[in-house]
């Protein structure tokens, strides 16, 4: 199987004659520029790819043995060429595609020359096993999922994950999936996946802390005389008793119908809004005119609250 040649000198932007010092300097400067943790959220995944290349190039060129082995391939190769390793280029048994996964973030090209483990422990430089990179993403959740929990299949970096959304999770919370991130490049543990929860707006309910709020439209006579009305809560319909004399803006509480927090739940508030009939019948008009005649309100219109 052919792999693509990687021009490590080109990746670091140094000539083939570069000194160890020049390679180190080029690496530091590129690492700073392309480090995924220094990129805006949207560009992190792309930067991670570039950063891997830079690290791979640095891993080879900063190690005298590996650099010698790489240089021995000759100067005629160009990045992207189909590459078949010369016989004896790698140690150990034949590397199969599955074995290559052990090199973690390093390329198949790297594995074809240095073997699965990069040709043993590096001399000098950092050899502490570093965890693989974390992958961060957004997890949009619906109000129903907050109320009941749920399961969602998401795609992150071409990988599919079935995520269990815990009941009662909140907007802005972060969900950690341990060990589901990128593999390590040198035998360390894999990275994590961090999902930032974003609560999608709901057409009927507004969220305020642990409580939910909804509009409760009422006819004037219901507001004046009181009424039993049907209200759709997230748990299904209930009958709510609207007391006589309910003003627009009055908050009627339905206890324990809000968002879950631990074993408890917040409340649901139905906010009364009095609507008037836009096209009253002749009888309704007559009734309102009668009402106007009989009205005992002290002023010609209600006082501004």
């Amino acid at each position, binding site marked *: 199987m052919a792999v693509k040649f990687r021009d490590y000198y080109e990746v670091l932007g140094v000539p083939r004659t570069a000194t160890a010092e020049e390679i180190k300097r080029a690496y530091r400067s590129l690492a700073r520029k392309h480090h995924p943790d*220094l990129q805006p959220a949207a560009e992190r995944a792309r930067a991670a790819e570039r950063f891997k290349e830079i690290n791979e190039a640095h891993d080879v060129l900063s190690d005298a043995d590996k650099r010698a082995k790489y240089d021995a391939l000759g100067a005629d190769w160009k990045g992207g060429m189909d590459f078949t390793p010369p016989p004896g280029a790698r140690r150990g048994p034949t590397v199969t595609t599955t074995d290559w996964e052990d090199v973690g973030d390093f390329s198949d090209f790297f594995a074809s020359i240095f073997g699965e483990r990069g040709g043993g422990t590096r001399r000098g430089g950092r050899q502490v096993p570093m965890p693989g*990179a974390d992958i*961060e993403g957004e997890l949009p959740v619906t109000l129903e999922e907050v109320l009941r929990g749920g*399961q969602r299949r998401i795609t992150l970096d071409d990988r599919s994950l*079935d995520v269990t959304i815990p009941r009662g999770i909140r907007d802005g919370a972060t*969900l*950690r999936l341990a060990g589901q991130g990128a593999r390590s490049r040198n035998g360390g543990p894999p990275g*994590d996946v961090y999902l930032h929860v974003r609560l999608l707006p709901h057409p009927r309910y507004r969220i305020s802390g642990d409580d939910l709020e909804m509009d409760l439209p009422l006819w004037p006579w219901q507001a004046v005389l009181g009424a039993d009305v049907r209200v759709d809560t997230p748990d299904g319909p209930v009958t709510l008793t609207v007391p006589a004399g309910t003003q627009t803006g009055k908050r009627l509480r339905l206890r324990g119908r809000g968002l879950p927090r631990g074993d408890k739940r917040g409340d649901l508030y139905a906010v009364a809004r009095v609507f008037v009939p836009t096209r009253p019948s002749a009888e309704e008009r007559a009734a309102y005119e009668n009402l106007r005649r009989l009205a005992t309100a002290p002023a010609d219109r209600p006082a501004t609250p």
Partner: protein
Amino acid sequence: MSVTPLPMHGHVHLTLRELAVACGISPTRLVHLVQLGLVEPDPEAPDHFSSAAAARLRRMLRLRADLGVNLAGAAIIVDLMERLDRLDAEFTRLRGQRWT
């Protein structure tokens, strides 16, 4: 071949010990970092840390390992990056509003 992924149960909160394991440092060292104010417990759940704190500390440790900054410097970098992300999101939102 299609692979059916297993359901992943994520965590929103971590104990001090769990956070230490999550970030590959010792609990003693984590206590020290908390005392220095480089890692902050969840204001809503004392003795616990949010998963966001884990993401943050891991970022700081990566920045230190990869770029050689110290943790105090890394904390500042992470703060600034978070601020930049918020501003980016706000900018995108405002630009969207202007044309609709």
